[in-house]
């Protein structure tokens, strides 16, 4: 229990740091942020500028602004979008489920591809399969995601007409009633299997695109971790006991290899979250990533601040979960 508490305490400085960076985003603008924001609209009077400055609290001292910003976040009052004139919270909550669904799908895809490929590569070390796998993984981390997404659309949607290349669900399939906002969950709840299958098909390409760099990375980590573990005496001892090779690899080797894999994958979760923006754009996915890009382009700073913060908090949360998982997997540090 102590260890968990300690770990939680460690995140406090990070959370403060996140709030500082997010807060400072608006003030990094060269010149007057209000003028830039309003400059988009065309001609504005000095009065309008003052009005807006007051609305954003920019007329108050910086310290005061920071504390009221933090207080607002904690209270759940995330401000108002300058463009849409609706609460930022509503805007974000509307977009969040689509992103969560896509991100989870991508994580699942990357683990399903990455771990078995890494294990296979390590077990068949020096074989052509290992060499090919390693090279493919290197290509995977060298590839721009938007290019992969376009290529997948070109091949599977344009060329082969196999999978849809955009949006969450075809317009001719009635969507299930919104409960969680996650279409897969909602369609199961409604017992609507047409919608479920449709959502799966729509998820396939974006999840693959979003998960590709992560699966390449997972593969590389799994491979090197497995190579390290396979050399250990307990693996030989398991063989000496007469354990089947498959069980040696999975029960004895992989369970140990997973310990470092969890940490590395969690640390690199940032690239997967960042990829949201790209993938959602390519596949017209109505998620948070698109909202960030659109808000940046329209200088809708309150929305930008909160969404960027949500991404950072997600990263922190995922690393916390990974640490707990690490403790769970490794009896030597278990609480």
């Amino acid at each position, binding site marked *: 229990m102590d260890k968990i508490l300690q770990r939680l305490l460690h995140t406090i*400085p*990070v959370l403060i*740091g*996140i709030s*500082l*960076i997010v807060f400072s*985003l*608006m003030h*990094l*603008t*060269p010149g007057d*942020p209000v003028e830039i924001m309003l400059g988009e609209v065309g001609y504005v009077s000095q009065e309008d500028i003052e009005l807006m400055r007051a609305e954003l609290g920019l007329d108050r001292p910086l310290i005061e602004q920071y504390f009221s910003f933090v207080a607002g976040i904690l209270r759940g009052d995330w401000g108002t979008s300058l463009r849409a004139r609706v609460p930022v919270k509503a805007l974000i909550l509307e977009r969040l489920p689509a992103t969560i669904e896509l991100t989870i799908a991508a994580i699942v895809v990357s683990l399903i591809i990455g771990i078995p490929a890494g294990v296979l590569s390590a077990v068949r070390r020096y074989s052509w399969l290992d060499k090919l796998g390693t*090279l493919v993984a*290197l*290509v995977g*981390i*060298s*590839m*721009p*995601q*938007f*290019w992969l997404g*376009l*290529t997948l*659309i*070109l091949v599977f949607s*344009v060329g082969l007409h196999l999978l849809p290349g955009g949006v969450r669900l075809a317009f001719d399939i009635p969507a299930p009633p919104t409960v969680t906002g996650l279409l897969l969950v909602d369609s199961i709840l409604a017992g609507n299997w047409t919608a479920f299958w449709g959502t799966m098909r729509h998820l396939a390409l974006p999840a693959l695109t979003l998960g590709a760099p992560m699966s390449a990375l997972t593969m590389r980590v799994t491979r*090197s971790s497995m*190579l*390290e573990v396979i050399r250990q005496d307990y693996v030989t001892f398991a063989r000496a006991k007469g354990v089947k090779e498959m069980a040696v690899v999975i029960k004895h080797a992989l369970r140990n290899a997973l310990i470092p894999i969890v940490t590395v994958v969690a*640390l690199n979760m*940032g*690239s997967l*979250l*960042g*990829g*949201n*923006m*790209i993938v959602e*754009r*390519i596949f017209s996915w109505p998620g948070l990533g698109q909202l*960030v*890009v659109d808000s*940046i*382009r329209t*200088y809708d*700073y309150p929305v*930008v601040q909160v969404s*960027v913060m949500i*991404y*950072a*908090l997600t*990263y*922190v949360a995922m690393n916390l979960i990974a640490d707990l998982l690490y403790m769970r997997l490794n009896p030597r540090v278990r609480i």
Partner: protein
Amino acid sequence: MDKYLARAEEFVITETLQQKLLRVLRRTVSNIQEFWRLYRKNHLAVIGGAIVLAFILLAIFAPWVTPHDPVTPNFRAIRKPPVWMKGGSWTHPLGTDHLGRDIWTRIIYGARVSLFIGFVVVGFATVIGVTLGLISGYYGGKIDAVIQRVIDTLLAFPYLILATALVGVLGPGLRNIVLALLYKEWIYPCRVVRSEVLVAKEQEYVEAARTVGAGNRHIMFREILPNVLASTVVVSTLRVGSVILMEASLSFLGLGVEPPTPAWGSMVAEGRRFINTEWWVSTLPGLAILLTVLGINLMGEGLRDALDPKLRE
């Protein structure tokens, strides 16, 4: 001890400048030969290096490599296919886009932007990161704690999201892109150098330097730095690839260098509209990114194997 020091001084003094230069030169040459011997063994790394070199040369000599202009539209040659397809010609080996601009030309000029940003950002980041990493690792204590918390915080922000937001508030343009990427980029060399310094600090040569009365700055920059240089070079090389990917993503999202300056990411974004018919407009620049980054990564792994045997699995 004093006696030996005096002897050593004598030796240094009796060596003329010319002799010293010659000695250093000879050692450098043999180091390079040894490095090349190890590097050459990895064929993929040699190929990677060749790809990178080719792109660098093409970028530098762009005006001499292609007769076309990268930005002027040519309405007489709109959406021409590449040479290997029906209707293609050697005039436009990789075809043209919707404004009739030669794609090969734009890829070469786009390399200028990508490589420039990649090397400049990583260059600055390495200088900042190595300095902070040395300080953080060497002194430890409060200053280390502060730097580490800053790094933890920056790690929490997905790179691309932070860079996008920063370019958003700073405004577009080459300089702001470099700044936006630098904002986070320095933490990578910093982390590597710090952990290496922690190891090096305990080594005997540092102890020895301290015994003969060397100052902190001397120990950090003259004794420790040369020993952490190898891993810094490896990490920085690999980082160039990541930064190029970031820049490409930024320009894909419309936050890169301003059009009509060709950048790989924005070329892909512009060509997206024609993906159903003229697929080459967007896929070929993407392929250029893939090749460059792959080349850099292959090179980086080769460097790692050749420079730093202990990093090998």
